[in-house]
Structure formats: C-alpha cells, structure tokens
C-alpha cells in the first residue's frame, strides 16, 4: 500500500446524507473477479442523472469527496471502498462515517477525514463557487485546508500510523517476517505439504 502523508486535489460536493454501500456500489458488481475496475459501478443509480455531481464537467478529475453525514452505512462489502479508489478518490470528508465502511477504508488506504458538519458546509460552498478550488488533506497535521479555511479532522491513531507508513494488514504482518521464518523452521517434519 502506498503511504498517505498529504494529498491536494479538486473536490466533489456530495450533498446527500445516509449514502449506503448499496448506493456506492450495487450488489451486481460483487460477482466480479477482479480487485480493480469498479469505477463504473460507483454511485451506479445516480450516474444516469446529468445533474448528479460526478456527471458535471466541473468536477471531472476530483480526488476528494466531500459527503453528507452517515456516509457508507449498510452492507459490509469491501467493494464500496474499492469503487471510490478506482474512480480516483484519495480521501472522503464527512461529519459522520459508518463504522464498517470506515474500517474497510483504513485497511485499503482510503482516508476518511472526520470533520464537523460546519466544515463540510463551508467546503461545499467554496467548491460550488469555484470547482477548481484545491483541497488539501494533510494526515501529518490532521488538517483539511482550502482557500482560507483550515480545519482539523479526526482519524483513528492506529489507522493514521498505518497510512503514514503505507502499511496494510499484510505489510504489518510481514514486519514479523523473522518470527514467521523461525516458526516455520520449528514445524514438525510430519506436517504435510500439498505438493505431490
């Protein structure tokens, strides 16, 4: 997993609350066999609506999503996080995230920056007034910055450490490589292998 220290990019305002993971990506996409390519399923039901924010040329290329409260509720599907990342989002800013979604995001390397709703409202106004506004999400200082606005955000300290280091669960386990090798050397000779 790539380390996340700071990210600056344009942002898309998603003025909706309670966006559940079925809305983020519908169940039909769960039959796929790849880990990537879920961007076409992102917010599938809304993508036919020309008014939908991601369909507006102004917000093409946005890499920060500023969403309403209770983002990511519902099904635990990891695909919701993958779809956001595949689309190009590096961070989601909201005043409330669903627990499982937030956990899945941390594992996959998508930053979920928890701010107060006032910050969300301010960001929405700024982005809508000027879609080229650059938003910086800085994990080191735990702040969101845009124009004159600088606001702190909350993130789980363990997730923050992992993202700063660029460590996924597997990366963390592999730090115990020598323990694993030592254990392997002590396994009994009668333990079977699958080779023939």
């Amino acid at each position: 997993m790539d380390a996340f220290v700071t990210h600056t990019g344009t942002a898309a305002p998603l003025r909706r609350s309670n966006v559940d993971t079925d809305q983020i990506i519908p169940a039909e996409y769960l039959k796929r066999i790849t880990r990537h390519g879920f961007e076409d399923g992102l917010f599938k039901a809304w993508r036919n609506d020309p008014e939908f924010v991601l369909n507006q040329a102004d917000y093409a290329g946005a890499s920060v999503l500023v969403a309403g409260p209770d983002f990511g509720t519902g099904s635990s599907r990891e695909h919701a996080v993958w779809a956001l990342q595949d689309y190009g989002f590096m961070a989601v800013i909201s005043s409330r995230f669903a627990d499982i979604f937030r956990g899945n995001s941390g594992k996959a390397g998508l930053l979920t920056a928890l701010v107060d709703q006032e910050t969300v409202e301010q960001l929405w106004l700024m982005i809508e007034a000027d879609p080229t506004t650059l938003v910086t999400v800085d994990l080191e200082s735990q702040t969101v910055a845009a124009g004159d606005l600088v606001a702190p955000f909350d993130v789980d300290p363990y997730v923050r450490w992992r993202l700063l280091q660029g460590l996924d669960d597997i990366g963390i386990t592999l730090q115990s490589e020598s323990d694993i090798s030592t254990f392997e050397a002590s396994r009994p000779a009668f333990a079977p292998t699958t080779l023939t």
Partner: protein
Amino acid sequence: MGTTLAEKVWEAHVVRRADGEPDLLYIDLHLVHEVTSPQAFDALRDAGRPVRRPDLTLATEDHNVPTVDVDKPIADPVSAAQVEALRLNCAEFGVPIYSLGSIDQGIVHVVGPQLGLTQPGMTVVCGDSHTSTHGAFGALAFGIGTSEVEHVLATQTLPLKPFKTMAITVDGPLPAGVTAKDLILAVIARIGTGGGQGYVLEYRGEGVRNLSMEGRMTLCNMSIEAGARAGMVAPDDITFDYVEGRTHAPHGAEWDAAVAYWRTLRTDDDATFDAEVVIKASELSPFVTWGTNPGQGVPLSAVVPSPDDAADEVERVSIERALEYMGLTPGTPMRDVAIDTVFLGSCTNGRIEDLRVAADILRGQQVAENVRMLVVPGSARVRLQAESEGLDRVFLGAGAEWRGAGCSMCLGMNPDKLTPGERSASTSNRNFEGRQGPGGRTHLVSPQVAAATAVLGHLGSPSDLPTNVS
C-alpha cells in the same frame, strides 16, 4: 490448570504474541476455491507479493461447476470466468490445483481429508464457512473472508482474536437409526443459530466417540450453523485409521512421531470450558427442519410448529414468516409433508459412507413418481469409489440421477437449482430462503431420511418403508 483441545492447537501455532494485539497464528493448510479467491490473487499481483507457501495451499473447483456434461465448457459466463481465473491464478502463483476432470477434484472439504491433508492438530482455513468440517480430525479449522485469504496467501499467518470454548457432550450411544446429521440438527435447535457465537465447540462423549470420521465431519461441518467459529473432535484411533495410508499422510518413523503427538491432543481432565451443553443421546431421533434456518428443526415424528409456541414476539414473527415462505400449516405432521426433489450430496453428507447408507435403503426400491432425486458425490474419487461398489447402478435403478462432483444444489450456484415453490429434502447444511434456488423450499435431513423420503414421496425414515420386494 489444564487446557482444552482447541487451546492446545492454538498455542502450538502462535508465531507472535504481544500485549493488546491479536495473536499471529500460523496456518498449516490453506484451501482455495474459485468464488472467494479471485480478488485476493488480484491484490497480491497488485502489491507484487508472491504466495508465501504454495506448498501449503491447495485449490479445487467446486462451488460453480456443473455436475452434468463436465467435459464441456461451463455454460454460465460468470461461473466460467471464476473457474478460468482460478486456473490462471494458480498457474501464475504456483498453487497446486485439482480442476474439473481431475481425479482429485471435488468439494474442498471432501478433498482435503480424502487426500490425507487434513490431520490432527493442524490449523486449516479456507474462504468458506464450512471449513469447520476439518475439525473432525482435531484440527482448528475455520472459514475466512477474501481479505484474509489474501493475508494467508501472502504470509501463511492470520492475526486472530481469542475465542471461547464450549463443550457439547453427547451422553450415551446414539440410538439405532439416529445419525450425526440428526445429532447436529438437534444441537442447533437446542442452542440456536447464534448459540455458538464466539465459541469453538468441542464435541465429546460416547455418542461422538462412536461416530465414524464421516459422521464426525458431518457434525463439525454444521458448527457454523450454530454460529460457532469452529467445531472439533479429539483425535483417536478412528481418526488415525482414517488418515493412515492416504496420499499426504506421514509414513514410517514420521507416522509414529505424528501419532505420538496426536495422542496428546485432548482436553485435559482438569480443563474448564467457558460453556457446556449436555445432550442425552437416548432422547434423539431422526431430525428434520421445517423452517428457513437450521435451528428451526423438529423430530421427524413431530408436527409443524405454530407461532403460538413462540417464547417471545421476535420468535413468533420469525415462525410466521418461515411458515409462509415454506408454505406449511401449523400442526401438520412432518411425515405428511410431500417432497418434489431429494438432494443427496454436499460437504455435509456427500462422502462415500453417506452414499452407501442411502444406496442400502434404495436397493430394490423406486423413487416415487413426481419426485426427482439428485445424487451428487462430494468428489470425483467418491464418485469412482461408489461406482466400483455398484452404488451408481442402485441409484440409477431406483430412478435417481447420478451426477459429477461439486457443491451443486447445496447452494445453487451452478445450474442445479430448485424452481420457485419447489420443495426439497436435502442432505446439505442450509435451509435459508432461496438458498437452493429462488423461491425454493428446503428441509434439511440425513442421508437415511433423504433416501426413504425419495421412495415415499413425503418426509419419512427407513422404518416407514415397506419391506423390499426385490
């Protein structure tokens, strides 16, 4: 103070332990199939990571594969793509695979034990909840999700939080006509589908010790239906006799060393469990489900329950909803429930012993008119073994269909499905709404009850059959 069997196996696999962190456990055997592995392999490729121990990993094709025309391309494009992806991934990462057409292909939980890969004291995982099956050998075996599949592929370990232990003690021998399937259905009806949550179950007592390995596998297989992480039976001579001589079993001096170690794998007399349940074997009889979860079961001799029997409002609503889905009327004797389809197979009851007992009942009998019976061996080798014993001719002679190996109608991911409203007596493990096909109605039963039901056309046991007239 002593320790339990589950704790002993856990302790023997701790790679790393630190305060406030989950234990890092070593995984001895990782079984892989086509449905839950593709994203795991894709993510490995993405990160440029190899499979750490392809020699402790084994793949087989089971969930999606057809059970007829197995020599032809798979018709369903989604299934075909998943199977093809598995083959390519295994080739790229060097993982051994038994594909459709291989003599060792079959349901992952039938193949592991059959090859002698599942042995006492091991840790076994697979991206499939019925991995608990392997606990029958005194292994700690449990299902994992796709992210964990990736983790095991990359590291051969898993960070795990500790579990609690529950003893399920079966006092006395099982009465004649009562099987491991009846026992586990009775256990789940007793403790509920959430009763085992957070626990590893250890099945003990005379009623368990007398079971064959096949019976123990049926028992452990359905531990997950009680919500448990895993189920285990302490290994004994029955276990060792089953393992000895199989392809991957130790031999010579290693066999002796292994057995000496395996004999230590039992719960100490002074160990305590976090919970204990005692089942009186003498009170058991053939068990069937009437509802839409495996805990909604009754003795075959009982009647369809009524919402009025519910202990609380939640249960009342649950019974009402299940009766409506199942199209059943309270008070109807279970034996009066007419069946359209009988499915004999699955990782619960698709082994050679299951086919033998069903064939014994069907010999000289005919499957009732308007009933279709599918017999789906758990593996290609089970199929061949059955054919060498002439069981296929018994099934075909009775009017049943004799199929290729796979998960088949247990979960209807391949073309073997119930149609809406169709009612089955099934030796599988889940009677959820739509599990065997949208709108399908499932009654979970033992192989004995399945075979008798096929002849009778309604739920019944072998004792209900007229004497063979052949």
